[in-house]
């Protein structure tokens, strides 16, 4: 069982994530976004969306850093106070994310107009995210100093996955809650390309470098010599 969940499922999820995302982008680009409902309801939207996104971004960034630079994290944690600061910060942003996802679910369930635009896939995703956030917070509360043990035992596991030599031994002795947290993460990646999460892949960063105005020509194929305006 562990072999499937921690040795096969991650590869399955990531492959599906990549293949299906590409297929969806190519075949059904029209749907490649997160169907915003801010137009239908604005007030709760703020209290749900802002904590959810900012909380999640920071928490994810923490995971990624512990994965990429475990040694530096361990060095930072060598001092108990610094470890405590890191743990508390992580927990605070985790709670922020929880506030966000609960807000999202209440808003989706209660507000009649928003409910109309919510489909089954959305609900599956929200439940999965909720479970993941709750289990993550549970891990950080009940299994203290995760900032350190993530770096010392989860990072090697994840790296072993990257190297295509999965070392399940790192995960097998972990308590149920940790395993649960990992599996829900893989499941989220698995359904990622079928859900609204695909909007992460099309964050419009090119806006930073773009000119303000956009002009499209049907007739003139190339801009005139010395042309500056779009």
């Amino acid at each position: 069982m562990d072999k499937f969940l921690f040795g096969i499922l991650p590869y399955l999820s990531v492959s599906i994530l990549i293949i299906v995302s590409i297929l969806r982008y190519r075949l059904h680009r029209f749907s490649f976004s997160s169907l915003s409902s801010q137009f239908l309801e604005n007030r709760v939207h703020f209290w749900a969306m802002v904590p959810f996104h900012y909380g999640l971004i920071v928490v994810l960034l923490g995971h990624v850093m512990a994965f990429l630079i475990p040694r530096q994290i361990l060095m930072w944690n060598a001092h108990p106070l610094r470890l405590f600061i890191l743990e508390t910060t992580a927990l605070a942003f985790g709670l922020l994310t929880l506030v966000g996802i609960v807000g999202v679910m209440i808003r989706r369930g209660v507000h009649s107009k928003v409910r109309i635009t919510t489909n089954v896939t959305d609900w599956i995703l929200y439940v999965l995210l909720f479970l993941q956030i709750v289990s993550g917070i549970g891990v950080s509360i009940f299994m203290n100093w995760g900032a350190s043990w993530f770096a010392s035992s989860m990072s090697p596991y994840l790296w072993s996955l990257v190297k295509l030599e999965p070392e399940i031994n790192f995960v097998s002795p972990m308590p149920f809650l940790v395993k649960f947290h990992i599996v829900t993460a893989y499941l989220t990646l698995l359904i990622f390309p079928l859900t609204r999460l695909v909007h992460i892949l099309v964050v419009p960063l090119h806006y930073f470098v773009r000119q303000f105005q956009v002009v499209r020509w049907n007739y003139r194929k190339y801009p005139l010599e010395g042309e500056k305006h779009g």
Partner: protein
Amino acid sequence: MDVRSQIATVFHLDKCIGCHTCSIACKNIWTDRKGTEYMWWNNVETKPGTGFPTQWENQDKYKGGWEIKGGKLGLKSTSKSQFLPNIFHNPSMPTMDDYYEPWTYRYSDLFNAPEGEDQPTARPISMVTGRPIEIKSGPNWDDDLSGSSLYAKNDPNLEALSPVQREQLLAVEKLVLFYLPRICNHCTNPACVASCPSGALYKRGEDGIVLVDQKTCRGWRYCVSACPYKKVYYNWQTGKSEKCLLCFTRLETGQAPACFHSCVGRIRYLGVLLYDAELIEKVARLPKEKLIEAQRAMILNPHDPKIIEGARRSGIHDSVIESAQKSPVYKFVKEWKMALPPHIEYRTLPMLFYVPPMSPVMANKNKETLCGNSEDLFHDIKESRIPLAYLANLFGAGDEGVVLQALKKQKAVRWYRRHLTVGDVPENIADRMLKESGLDRHEAEAIYQLTSLCTFEDRFVIPPAHREEAIEMLKDPLEHKQEVGFGFLERPKRGL
């Protein structure tokens, strides 16, 4: 000089009767789909009034358009540093409550109601949720000044008026209203295009029509808040923005847009303007009071050989240049200076222009006001029921002079024609009015013709779209010879 061609429009407000035929024509063609029911790409507002969406001109609330930030032109609602932090929740996004929740009626109630004492009624049903709703307001709830204590009183354009003037405007015996039909202005410096992080909104190079590429739009919603005229709408069903297309599909086949075609009062004019695209940014950055003159200067004379040469160099087809020479819009905007841009202080440089409406003079004046014996022949314009300051806020960026000029010309033409047809206006008075408003008899005659006796061909001078040549520039037509007409939607080939 970078000469570009723009399909521009003029709405003659003095002729608008507020019948909403334009709105219905547009609605039936474009916005009767799910998610678009609440949209009115074309709407007709009663002014004074709060419009659609409510108080759209209040940019403290909606943050539409451009502003000068430290000498530079920037969007009021967003910027390159703000767009990412605000992407999860757009702080200046209007919601459906600012428009209205669309509804229909459950007509089956009329047939299925049990027999009883009362007449059966059809219950209103929300077109969003499908559930019964209590209708509190809708589009044009303030039509013809209804509910004016709620709506007309809160018109943002009344700011420039003194409290006494405001009071007078809404006093029963002095009530005045006019209609303001609105579509997308297809601006030369569109804020919606500039705000779209995905680059889905664009201005067509050949004719300046502003469109939303539905496949590129990801529903980040910045265009909705950036457009100061609130003419980009969010389709809550598809999660994409939609807007007036100026019926480009009709234009490309030589037909006027649906709202133009159906206009009962014949108030709408459409034609090509040539303008210098190099000047856009410079003009949009000028101080408020210089904007109208600068935009006029940006519009080029299509009869000038140098401009024609420049237009050809930019790849503008001779037939389009010819169209520009006949353009009724060019005459109203540039030659006669009678048509003015709406709220040019938003700095999007709109390409829809309005001929401001005449209105009755104040009722508390004596007869002498009307008989024209006064030294100042145009004094009644200043005393008309719609205060000049109000019109100036709408069409003159606060400058009463340009509005006065436009109204003077309208009045002079009327009196000149009255001299010719009725004969009770002495020739010297008619000529003096023409002179004082800056017209000669020839021009007055032309204005009269284009205002009162205009045919379809006079009002709509549609340039050929030359899409066939556009294809040739991009692709070898022979290669695509079999692509039009009937064919296979999916390739019939099977297997590997």
